[in-house]
């Protein structure tokens, strides 16, 4: 199944949860693969199981059926690191210790892991705050730390679950630009979840659109915009607009369907 150029192979994945009224299917018939070094974005209406899918890839949850092959750890590097949607930096560690966390667990000596952490702290522009605790930081700064923590761990695959979802728009644009810059330097395989079409086009190589509950794949769209990308300039590109309209055309019916489901369950 796995070949050298793919990083993630998902085949016929199913996931169901148990509830009082019997099993509820969250994900059905999910088949896709992510190429090595690709920035893969997943977009879908809320409640379509995007987060569940990512948590399965991260090994935090188990699939109910089907095959998930994630290329494993190589040469002492960890398989994957996740950037979570909600506030997830440890309040009891300084910025430096948070960023160095993965390296610490891998037994890398203090001096070395702090050097690595320093590099990423500089990349996210928080050098002045290396010794600060998270409660002294703004929401955007905390999310930067979370991104740096994942990158510093040097994993095979980066998994990001709406990392900028809770930020205001101005902060979000700045963090997207920073993420593109760091990613284009490292070219790690990345799976990124978002509900923003704009974010999907700006960041991704390919965008997978999911259907409303139960989640399944609607289609996968290629984002043929040149790299390196500039988050401001890209919006004036006519391809950007074409892709936006195309994705929204596909997504619209799914969003409407999920709205109807919500109304249906509420009545």
């Amino acid at each position, binding site marked *: 199944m796995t070949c050298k150029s793919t990083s993630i192979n998902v085949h016929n994945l199913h996931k169901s949860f148990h509830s009082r009224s019997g099993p509820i299917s969250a994900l059905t018939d999910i088949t896709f693969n992510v190429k090595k070094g690709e920035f893969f974005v997943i977009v879908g209406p809320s409640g379509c199981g995007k987060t569940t899918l990512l948590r399965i890839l*991260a*090994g*935090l949850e188990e699939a109910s059926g089907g095959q998930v092959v994630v290329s494993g750890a190589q040469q002492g590097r*960890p398989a*994957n*690191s*996740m950037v*979570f949607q*909600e*506030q*997830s930096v*440890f*309040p*009891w*560690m300084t910025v430096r210790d948070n960023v160095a*966390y*993965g390296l*610490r*667990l*891998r037994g890398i000596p203090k001096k070395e892991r702090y050097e690595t952490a320093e590099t990423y702290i500089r990349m996210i522009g928080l050098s002045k705050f290396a010794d600060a*605790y*998270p*409660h002294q930081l703004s929401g955007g700064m905390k999310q930067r730390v979370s991104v740096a923590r994942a990158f510093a*761990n040097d994993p095979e695959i980066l998994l990001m679950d709406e990392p900028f979802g809770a930020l205001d728009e101005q902060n979000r644009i700045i963090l997207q630009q920073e993420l593109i810059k760091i990613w284009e330097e490292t070219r790690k395989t990345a799976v990124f979840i978002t509900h923003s079409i704009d974010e999907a086009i700006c960041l991704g190589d390919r965008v997978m659109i999911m259907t409303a509950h139960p989640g399944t794949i609607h289609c996968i769209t290629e984002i043929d915009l040149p790299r390196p990308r500039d988050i401001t300039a890209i919006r004036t590109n006519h391809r950007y607009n074409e892709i936006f309209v195309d994705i929204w055309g596909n997504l619209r019916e799914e969003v409407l369907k999920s709205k109807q489901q919500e109304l249906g369950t509420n009545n």
Partner: protein
Amino acid sequence: MAKSLHSNVVTNTLSVLSPLSLLLVWEACARVGFVDTRLLSSPTQIFQSLLPLLGSGELLYNTLVSMQRVLLGFVAGAVPGILLGMSMGISPLVRSAVEPMIQATYPIPKLAIMPLILLIFGLGETSKVFTIGIGVFYLVVINTMAGVLHIEKIYMDVAKNFGASRLDFYLTVAFPGALPMIFTGLKLGMGMALILVVAAEMSAAKAGVGWMIWRAYDMFAIEQMFVALIVLSVLGYVFSIFLDILERWVVPWKQRA
């Protein structure tokens, strides 16, 4: 800015003036005969009996005896309390095995088992340290467990995703995450330790601040009783400041008002 500075001066002055004026009113009432000085004494009388107690070293000796009991009992209760509380918080197995026993015995007032402790350990130091230790233990174990259980699940996900071993999880998530609640337990435990040391010294002791109070009762030396109460107030204050400083040092990341 100017206004807040002004109100700061006012509040600070008020906090000093208000207890001072209470003392003055007390003294005045005692002089005029509004209060019975045989029962309530007066600030000057108390101060007068404080000096010889200080000079003879008796007060210091009894204070140190009580302090030693409090500290030994505190450590004897807090250390196993933290260890067991951590294990109960982390392992559902340990929790379901131990929690019923804790819950069943927690409501028993610790003073109620003192006679039993005296029978088992005799009249020596051990029985006092043990009584205090038991009281501290319950408060620390319950708060430590709650501290671990209240750590947000997201931090466990992070630890798991970054490949934390069981020991890593203990050291980098469970313990630091539970520390604020552990300190809540320690502070409550310190208050409990002061209650218990006095009670233990009143019933079976030959020294200590509690013993001083009981002896003052026997001799009807009301002033000495008040001196002992002042010592207890100072001890409680010093211990709480010590714990605050320790907390600032161990939990520097906690947001403080």
